[in-house]
């Protein structure tokens, strides 16, 4: 390897007492006296580099000075190149990274550099690179050939996964973008089906147990045999709490689970699905999921947090209902009511948690509308409690605020940067309000 670095002298003195006056690095950011280097003879081809720039020299062992690479950019005559003050000896292009690769004195300090070789545990040629002449040759392709490879790859993978992609697109909000994407996908789906290229994905999904699972029916949700509520909750006979919702329930739900289980009288199960809600059962069928889980888990009560994704158009009997329209509100209220019926069957209790105030005005309006629907439906359904949280996350002027005072009056961050989701502290606040209602309802002594 060529070793004609102009800073070679300084490299021999890694532990000297800063006597190397060429190294600005030991003296704040004093510029080096040496200039940028001369033009590279190999321009315009940039130097070949090691793929692992720092094999031997530990980053924290500054036995060697920082890399002093010549400015090949300036050397090529680029605009604005600085005038070199003094010519420096030429360096071969191959040693562009050689400052890093040289096993310098820096390896003295600290823990063993790389143990059994710069490449790793099996020696330099095992995890490290093979010597240049023994490295497998790679054939290079032209841009057109690579484009052809990518087009083949994407097209065939698209055919194999056409149905999966179609399912994902169907879950997007109703609208022009979704319609266009579905229209574009249609020929792929048809072709995939005709060529039976959708079979491998189905077989793979079935192998992984992702196929369509058998569902339970509402008839299987048993009626009350012995009084479920009220009853004495003890450590042996815990309250089984099922927590469901969308992405909002991720933080809120885990906070509620944590707080509830700290009582040692409640056993909680969190079940949330990002981007879901009650507007789009074609994306995620929560009504069916509720039935399945109630049959399988037999919870005593359910805490519910929906709405964040429900402010979108819904498909009802083949018609698209615009979000916020009268018809939309009627249909959405029916769905909420039906969910409440399911959750309270068999004497179960449901705690429907309202959404907090949101940052963006339009979105806030929709959320407020849905909160009103939840509250109204809860009043119609015995065993359902509506827990408003809007005001819990509003400031003293009733407006949205990222930061709100905690119990001691210090401002703490309650909301995520998106103006929708909660931070952990925010989740705890919402969960505590919910738990207070649950404890009161079941006669569980409140925690101090």
């Amino acid at each position, binding site marked *: 390897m060529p070793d004609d670095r102009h800073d070679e002298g300084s490299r021999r003195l890694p532990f000297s007492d800063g006597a190397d006056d060429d190294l600005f*690095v030991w003296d704040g950011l004093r*510029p080096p006296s040496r200039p940028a280097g001369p033009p590279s003879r190999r321009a315009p081809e940039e130097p070949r580099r090691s*793929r692992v720039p720092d094999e031997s020299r530990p980053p924290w062992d500054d036995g060697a000075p920082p890399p002093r690479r010549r400015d090949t950019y300036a050397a090529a005559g680029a605009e604005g190149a600085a005038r070199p003050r003094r010519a420096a000896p030429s360096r071969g292009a191959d040693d562009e990274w050689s400052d890093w690769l040289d096993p310098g004195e820096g390896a*003295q300090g600290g823990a063993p550099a790389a143990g059994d070789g710069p490449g790793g545990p099996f020696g330099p040629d095992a995890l490290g690179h093979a010597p240049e002449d023994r490295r497998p040759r790679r054939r290079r392709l032209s841009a057109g050939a690579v484009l052809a490879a990518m087009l083949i790859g994407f097209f065939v993978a698209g055919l194999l996964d056409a149905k999966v992609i179609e399912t994902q697109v169907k879950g997007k909000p109703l609208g022009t973008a979704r319609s266009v994407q579905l229209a574009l996908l249609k020929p792929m789906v048809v072709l995939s089906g005709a060529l039976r290229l959708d079979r491998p*994905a189905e077989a793979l999904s079935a192998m992984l147990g992702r196929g369509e699972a058998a569902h339970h029916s509402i008839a299987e949700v048993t009626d009350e045999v012995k009084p479920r509520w009220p009853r004495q909750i003890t450590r042996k006979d815990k309250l089984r709490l099922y927590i469901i919702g969308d992405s909002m329930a991720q933080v809120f739900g885990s906070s509620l689970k944590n707080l509830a289980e700290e009582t040692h009288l409640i056993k909680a199960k969190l079940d949330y699905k990002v*981007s879901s809600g009650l507007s789009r059962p074609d994306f995620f069928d929560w009504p069916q999921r509720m039935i399945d889980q109630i049959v399988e888990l037999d919870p005593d009560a359910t805490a519910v947090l929906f709405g964040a994704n429900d402010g979108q158009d819904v498909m009802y009997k083949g018609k698209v209902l615009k979000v916020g329209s009268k018809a939309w509100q009627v249909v959405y209220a029916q769905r909420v009511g039906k969910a409440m019926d399911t959750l309270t069957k068999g004497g179960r209790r449901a705690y429907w948690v309202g959404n907090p105030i949101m940052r963006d005005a339009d979105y806030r309006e929709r959320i407020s509308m849905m909160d009103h629907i939840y509250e109204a439906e809860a009043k119609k359904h015995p065993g359902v409690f509506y827990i408003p949280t809007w005001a819990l996350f509003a400031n003293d002027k009733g407006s949205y605020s990222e930061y709100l005072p905690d119990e001691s009056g210090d401002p703490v961050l309650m909301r995520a940067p998106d103006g929708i989701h909660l931070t952990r502290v925010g989740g705890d606040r919402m969960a505590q309000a919910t738990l207070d209602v649950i404890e009161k309802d079941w006669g569980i002594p409140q925690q101090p």
Partner: protein
Amino acid sequence: MLFPTITFAVFFLVVYAANWLLMPRLRLWKWFIIAASYVFYGWWDWRFVLLLVAATFVNQALGVQIARARGRRGGGRAARRWLALSVVADLAALGYFKYMDFFAGSLDHLLSSVGLGAPLPLLRILLPVGISFLVFRVLTYTIDIYRGQLAPASTLDFGVYVAFFPYLLAGPIARARDFLPQLRAPRDPHSIDAGRAFMLILGGLAKKMLIADYLSTHIVNGVFASPQSFSSWETLWGIAAYSVQIYCDFSAYSDIAIGVSLLLGFELPENFNAPYTARSIQDFWRRWHITLSSWLRDYLYIPLGGSRKGRGRTYVNLIVTFLLAGLWHGAGWTFVFWGGVHGVGLALERARADARQARGLREPGATAGARMLQRLAVFVFVSVAWVFFRADSIGGAFAVLWRLVAGLGSIGSAVTWPVVGLVVLGIGIQYVPRGLVERLEGGLSRIGWAGQGAVLALALFLIATLGPQGAAEFLYFKF
């Protein structure tokens, strides 16, 4: 725009085709790649693009001033002033967007605790994704000009360097002096290293979609959200799974970025080199996020004095560097604590080596068993530190660690065979010899475009079918 999405695939096909069509007209190509990169970045929020524009013009102007001052006799002081202005401007932007509320909140809390109220307003500023990477990247430009290692580029070239979309969001932190030379002449359209590029992209997608996302949803999120619900056994695997998750997530982004760049004709530095095979913390940092650790070394640790000012100062420099490295990762005390743990670990390692050196002792040759124990010890150390990196608060981190002893007695159900298998796989792939990977890359490159298309189709199909539906964000975006 996320890499593992159909949106990006379509975007990339269009950009790829235009990239090579326009490449012969280099100036036009530069305008095009800047526009494409702005679209990529503005996909989140168009306002972010303003940051790129500002970073380009401010740093370019200052870089030119630094070079002019350096070119004048006796212009060293002026150059230093311009450099200081550039460092202050870039760090101020980072401080404003990323740390303003953190510092104001911490100060408020401190003042409040001594009865002085909370006088500072908290603004909750929109954090542009990848701003930490952006700032560190542009700093290499002005600092290297000051150091005489680089001449100012044209504004157009620097605009490409600032915005080049493959590394824009989460690195690797390509230095200006490595990237700008590649803009000198059109890239060769007949010499694309597609074998390596496809291996990197497909490997990255597999790491992200099949390992990181699975572990995240099946054990890690639960263990960190509700530690008291998990047994010691589950917590142990949850912590190990997070170590694997963060590696598979972050290295995947780097690999995809490098692969995508290769397809466009550009080389980026490698960012990971089997970090969990490290036998010392120092070795770990030579293998983990290499472009950041070398950045910190060259632009922070060494200017602080490095190891040139005595042993005590060396240890202090290590700790200070890593405290700041922690802060770079996020505006929170958990990140500072994480950095501190690594800094202290490095300092202790260094002190031990210094003590041995002072007594004239050499490092004993390690047996195979001892080497494995060293690797295990480093993995345990790094994993415990990751707990602080992942947790919502320092208290939350200790709650997780406490479960390691408080959750004895039951096994729980979270540690499934797929979880165990993927943790083992995530560590095991780091022990795959490089030579084998290079042979695979070579083999893939030799089967021609039709064969590569077939491999691409099969791999994409498997990743899409076996992976979770919908792509999760890469962890390092928030930094």
